[in-house]
């Protein structure tokens, strides 16, 4: 499962721009994964400028 660390996240939206499934919602100052859509391709994890995305088994 992809996890966003809200304490590290800068809410910049770079992860949203590469998500092929529109599985990330960034509203106001909160980032959320829409787990039903996520296929764990990990592009969000790779591009995150501050390493706020983790993949926990």
């Amino acid at each position: 499962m992809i996890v966003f660390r809200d304490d590290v996240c800068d809410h910049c939206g770079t992860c949203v721009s590469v998500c092929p499934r529109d599985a990330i919602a960034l509203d106001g100052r909160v980032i959320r994964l829409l787990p039903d859509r996520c296929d764990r391709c990990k592009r969000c994890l790779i591009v995150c400028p501050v390493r706020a995305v983790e993949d926990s088994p």
Partner: protein
Amino acid sequence: MRTDQRVEVVVVGAGPAGLMAALALAREGHEVIVADRKERLGAPVRCAEGVGREALQKYIPLDSGWISAVIRSVRLVAPSGDSVELGRHMEGLVLDRVGFEEDLGRRAVEAGARIQLNAYVSGLLRGEKGVQGVLLERTGDHLRVGCSLVIAADGVESRVARWAGIETALALRDVETCAQYLLEDIDIDESRCDFFFGREIAPGGYAWVFPKGRRRANVGLGISGGRAARRSPRELLDRLVNRHYPRGRKVRFAAGGVPVSRSLKRPYAAGLLVVGDAARQSNPLSGGGIIPALEAGRLAAETAHRALTRGDLSERSLSAYGAAWNRSLGRSQKRYYRLKEAVSRLPDSTLERTAGALKGIDPERLTLFRVFATALRRHPRLIWDARHLFLPSA
């Protein structure tokens, strides 16, 4: 369709593209709302804030209140530390983006547009005729806002265009993942922008130092998303800052993504226009997005005004905007994309050879074209693409 409110045009996103579109449409007498999830126009700043003076003044009267620094030259630094300096055709500005966007916003409001902050668009209303409104969340309320046209100006993280069926997801190599500090108390040439290149410094991108006046600068870097797996921009930036500005005071940090992509082939759908970073219209070589955003906003408003006047918001009617973009900056953007692809693959040895070959040339005589022509010696076809290059252009 049931709605709680109706307006003529909803602009999603109050950055340069959205505000310019709103300003131009309001001036034509259209009823426009701009909605943005931010609390304040221009903030947080996710931008190096550099822009060409001549290009910018085509869109807005320059105001010293939001100009942080005037740039007279540019220095390109190779991994070895050898550098070349360019001083011609280089008049640039480093902006205060908050002041700049507040000014643009004020002009839009004076022209009759309404700007709503803390307003999150969570979905689209769609009907037979395509996009017919937005779902707006604001201060706990969920409103169905009906409209004739939506303009998606929602930045790199754009979802509005996707909801209308336009594929916008960026390939990893088509996004630069960036980190930037505003540093204080540093000794720099306050009228020169510096760019640092090299695989160890910023793989597939570059680092920048853009002066902000009074011993301050935006110091940041962007790396290709395709090469970001090993080290993050923030880690690389901390290393750069520790090396070059160990005494600099970090007053602000921002992360962000910049599209370095081809622009959307069809930045429109029935009832929808897509502008700026959302349409992947930033300059793929420099990453500069302010001028493309303003131009896209202006062009979108022109098409929208005609379409609204005729009462025809069909995809075909709105396709005039796509054609206008291609005639305007779209064409040069294709050249910049080819250059980006080539430049991001140049090995450090080529960068060093280029700096060595051009060392000592009078900055007033050295052009960016000559730098690229030297660096791309083995790619003669691309040199044609570089013939109109100028930075910071956008």
